């Protein structure tokens, strides 16, 4: 079962809209960045003066929803289709022009990954507050975003808005999911030419979803309800029977099917009776039926109404579990950032809810290691008998992202060394790494390796070794003076020290609440 490993932290991107092996489209500070092969475009949003001034602040962007937009790459030319501020634009990246192609009736933008594509046909439905419950349109472009036509309309009062449009390759039909309140949640099937075929569901929260997965025999989704307990759900295509599979601790806004058969779903931390705790949870599944918690992120505590619910999102495009992008809003650790991640196969702490907080902390620690830009090379350790004497900083850094099989013998050797040579830890570290910066880096990375092993193998002996490192005063403390650097940011090593200490603290808390067995 998987655990989250962070490969890259992009602090300048608030959203990664699309990523595959050829290109990546991100946005941050009201600028779109499109990288495709060797080409790179920077496309500032069309903004009024107030937006340009206020939009420099992340807090203002959050409060005013000015960070939000949706981007789909066109299939031909250097063009992007962008939904922003109530309009759909065709953006010519070479010329840097934003040509409005459609004015939206009820919304400024739509949910991420909710725009369906089939060849050069793009389809999406409007996602607005719609207080009067007017009719909700579904728009279609058959020329890859150059022109748009309404192709379907939900009659007034039948839906608040559209959550997403999805192409079902098994039946060659479009599926449109709607919300939000009872009587408004349906799955509307449309033919290839947008003729209504079937409206599935009784309008209840069971049918409220933002993402669908299709198999030949079933349709899967995860509920998006802050009103009722959220479940992973399965519809049997032949019998029409809808089955609740597994409860989740909050509504799922965003989900993603990865190319290697792994499914991701993220619960949102909003307000409502179905939201169990102040966390957004990241779940992974191999079959869309059984879900395992991979990580959880606490809400950052700002008022949710003004500064958003805590949400994790995923980039559109073909990605695998070894390389995918996610981004976060209003969540501690990932707020306003995008992470490139991999899911490492490892014994999962998912069955012990407590340990997941430590896993999350480890994700942050790994991101700090990436950010510190310490060199990493597993070649340093290969062919070596694991021992403290042979450990190098590049080797240790590489261990933090290596497989369990590679990491385990080194972690065991380090743990034994620390336990047996307790009174010699500091002198040995001083001899091995005379520079204080190197010594601190080595101690921190060793701590991450030990904590990873402790969590994955459910073995507190490794945590004990981290305490021993701390007692030997080789593990750096978080100094307040480090917070006074440029822009009040912490130095990478200090940030890592903070994350390591946070993992230790959460493991302490989890040890009191749960069991290591």
């Amino acid at each position, binding site marked *: 079962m998987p655990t989250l490993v962070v490969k890259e932290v992009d602090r300048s991107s608030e959203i990664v809209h699309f990523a595959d092996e050829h290109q990546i489209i991100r946005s941050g500070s009201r600028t779109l960045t499109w990288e495709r092969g060797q080409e790179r475009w920077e496309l500032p949003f069309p903004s009024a003066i107030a937006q340009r001034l206020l939009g420099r602040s992340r807090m203002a962007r959050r409060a005013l929803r000015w960070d939000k937009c949706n981007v789909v790459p066109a299939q031909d030319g250097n063009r992007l289709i962008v939904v922003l501020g109530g309009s759909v634009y065709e953006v010519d990246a070479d010329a840097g022009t934003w040509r409005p192609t459609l004015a939206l009736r009820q919304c400024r933008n739509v949910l991420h990954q909710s725009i369906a594509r089939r060849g050069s046909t793009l389809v999406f439905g409007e996602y607005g507050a719609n207080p009067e419950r007017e009719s909700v349109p579904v728009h279609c472009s058959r020329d890859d975003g150059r022109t748009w036509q309404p192709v379907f309309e939900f009659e007034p009062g039948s839906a608040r808005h559209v959550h997403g449009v999805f192409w079902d390759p098994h039946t060659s039909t479009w599926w449109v999911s709607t919300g939000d309140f009872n009587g408004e949640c349906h799955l509307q099937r449309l033919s290839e030419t947008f003729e209504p075929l079937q409206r599935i569901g009784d309008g209840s929260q069971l049918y409220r979803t933002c993402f669908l997965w299709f198999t030949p025999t079933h349709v899967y989704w995860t509920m998006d309800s802050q009103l009722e307990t959220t479940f992973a759900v399965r519809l049997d295509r032949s019998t029409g029977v809808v089955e609740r599979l597994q409860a989740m601790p909050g509504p799922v806004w965003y989900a993603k099917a990865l190319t290697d058969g792994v499914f991701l779903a993220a619960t949102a931390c909003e307000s409502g009776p179905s939201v169990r705790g102040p966390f957004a949870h990241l779940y992974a599944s191999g079959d869309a039926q059984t879900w395992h918690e991979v990580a959880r992120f606490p809400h950052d505590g700002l008022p949710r109404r003004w500064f958003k619910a805590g949400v994790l999102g995923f980039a559109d495009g073909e990605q695998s579990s070894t390389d995918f992008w996610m981004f976060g809003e209003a969540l501690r650790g990932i707020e306003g950032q995008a992470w490139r991640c991999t899911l490492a196969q490892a014994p999962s702490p998912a069955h012990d809810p407590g340990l997941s907080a430590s896993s999350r902390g480890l994700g942050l620690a790994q991101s700090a290691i990436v950010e510190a830009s310490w060199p990493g090379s597993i070649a340093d350790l290969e062919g070596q008998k694991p021992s403290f004497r042979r450990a190098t900083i590049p080797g240790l850094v590489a261990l933090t992202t290596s497989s369990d099989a590679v990491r385990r013998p080194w972690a065991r050797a380090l743990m*034994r060394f620390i*336990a047996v040579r307790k009174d010699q830890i500091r002198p040995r570290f001083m001899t091995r790494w005379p520079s204080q910066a190197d010594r601190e880096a080595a101690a921190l990375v060793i701590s991450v390796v030990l904590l990873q092993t402790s969590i994955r193998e459910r073995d*507190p002996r490794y945590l004990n070794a981290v305490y021993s490192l701390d*007692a030997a005063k080789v593990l750096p403390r978080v100094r307040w003076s480090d917070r006074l650097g440029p822009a009040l940011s912490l130095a990478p090593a200090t940030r890592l020290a903070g994350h390591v200490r946070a993992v230790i603290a959460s493991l302490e808390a989890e040890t009191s609440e749960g069991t*290591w*067995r």
Partner: protein
Amino acid sequence: MEMNEPVVAVFSPSVKSLYSTAVLEMLHRRGVRVGLVVIRRMFTPSRVRQELRRDGFRLVRKAYKKLILRERTSAASGPSIRNAVSEQALGEGDLRRTCRRLDVPFMVVSDLNSDPVVDALRQLEVRCVVSTGGGLLREPLLEATGLGVLNCHMGILPQYRGMDVVEWAALYDDWGGIGLTTHLMDRGVDTGPILQIHPVPIAGTSTFTALRQRLHAEMPDQIVSAACGLLDGTIIPAPQKKSDGRQFFIIEPALHELAEAKLRAAAKSRA
């Protein structure tokens, strides 16, 4: 068992060891012929160095508790080896005096692994050694007896090898993992063949000090009965596989505290 049957030796970590005294007295009462008692000198530079390396600052605390606070622990109510020794009149608290009274030869050495000890064991054709402490034993000594060296480990083997295993078992919420195991020593740490396992329920014991005292109080009886069983063939040593268990090390104060909190909670629920 009659006198003049197989010779047994007792290893002791110090002349003041109540555990050693109790074991010697109990072996004698059960008719086991103790041919030699080997006592390790309390203070030698190498011993201090070795224990300091192993225990660090904890050694100072340990010494303070053992040597300075001895009266206080002995006064504690509940089962303890001191209470057991005084209740059953097991020796005088000085091993040399007990040896003289029971007419058992003894030698005081700096290192239990030294050549004179090995030679003495060979000369006396000692069948087995009952070790009541004194550090790791090396191969020549382990091979100098017919059946081997017995040790009573304060934990359940093979799962909990090494140090502080009572605390580690509590940290795992493994309340069945607390107890005593008598085993033959080999080169590894608590990896030798097992003679008998004696789980000890925590009952209402809410501190590790009290729990360890309870366990300690039961150790002489356990090791003596295992020695007798080994000598008369009623107990067959069961070998351990290395992979059957894990070695634990000295627990750090933070985890000790968490383990004790778990013990308190478990004791409360059992009380």
